[in-house]
């Protein structure tokens, strides 16, 4: 899975949680929770969806790595590399 694929999955799953999200206007370095008004339940649903779609484990202790869009893509790429 390429970085572009991961980006596409992340955009799609963020869209499930925050349907009004305009991916083209998303600041990739801003805090996702602030930017998209995501609460702890939304975030848990996002983690659940990502682990299922990418077949990776995301421990709770790693949540800070998903703070911004860019960090999240980096982190997911790294987890996928470990899984493969």
């Amino acid at each position, binding site marked *: 899975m390429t970085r572009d694929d991961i980006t596409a999955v992340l955009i799609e799953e963020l869209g499930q949680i*925050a349907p*009004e999200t305009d991916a083209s206007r998303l600041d990739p370095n801003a805090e996702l*929770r602030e930017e998209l008004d995501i*609460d*702890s339940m939304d975030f848990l649903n996002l983690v659940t969806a990502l*682990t299922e779609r990418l077949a990776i484990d*995301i*421990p709770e202790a790693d949540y800070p790595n998903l703070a911004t869009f860019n960090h999240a893509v980096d982190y997911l790429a790294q987890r996928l590399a470990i899984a493969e």
Partner: protein
Amino acid sequence: MASERGIALAGLGGSGPGGAILYADVERAAAGAVSGPAPTKRLDLKEMRRAIAAAMARSKREIPHYYLSTTVDLTSAFAWLEAANATRSPTQRLLLAALLLKAVARALGEAPEFNGFFTAAGFQPGSGIHIGTAIAIRGGGLVAPAIRDADKLSLDELMARLRDLVTRARSGALRSSELSDPTITVTNLGERGVETVFGVIYPPQVSLVGFGIPVERPWAVAGEVVARRVLTATLAADHRASDGHRGALFLADIDRRLQSPETL
């Protein structure tokens, strides 16, 4: 389900977001009720705003609120949660909200005067502990559907109910009974926002427990100042049904229970 009952989806009007066909729409078509009031609360933000306005205006007009506040050290609760979640897959993980709701439910067992309704006949205790859980709706507004018999649910069951309610509240698929059932409301500001919430009681209920966001603060433990994650818990209660002394014991009991999360 539609095919089971011989209904063509193409012929149905959807009442969900963006015209999505909900379970209830199929049920309604199956029952042959083409028109009439929908059995579910649709996500109509204007209607929701009107309902909030009516309930809150009545609350402030009729209910003599009193307010209490206390700071809860969350060290034990977070340590327990982190340990519990470390071995769980995301679908099984618990949120702090589940612990908070359970602590309130258990404390209400000892403080029945905060659980129920105030009517023309005076205070009527609730027939169970049904916690209205305030859920913010994207785009504005909120609903507070009930988690029924919250005191009897395990933390896992409570978390599953909460997850289901939040999902359905945001898609507009709540049953109207879920909105009329609560015997108390809990509002939890989650992880972003402010430290303290001064609740407005949802009539005819008699109390509202509020939790602010967890924050790291200097905290004195055995003569030493240490950094601790704490949260402000508040109680807004109806002075016609209870007094501040009992309210203080109730709020302190919620705190005490959160210090022993393994017993929740």
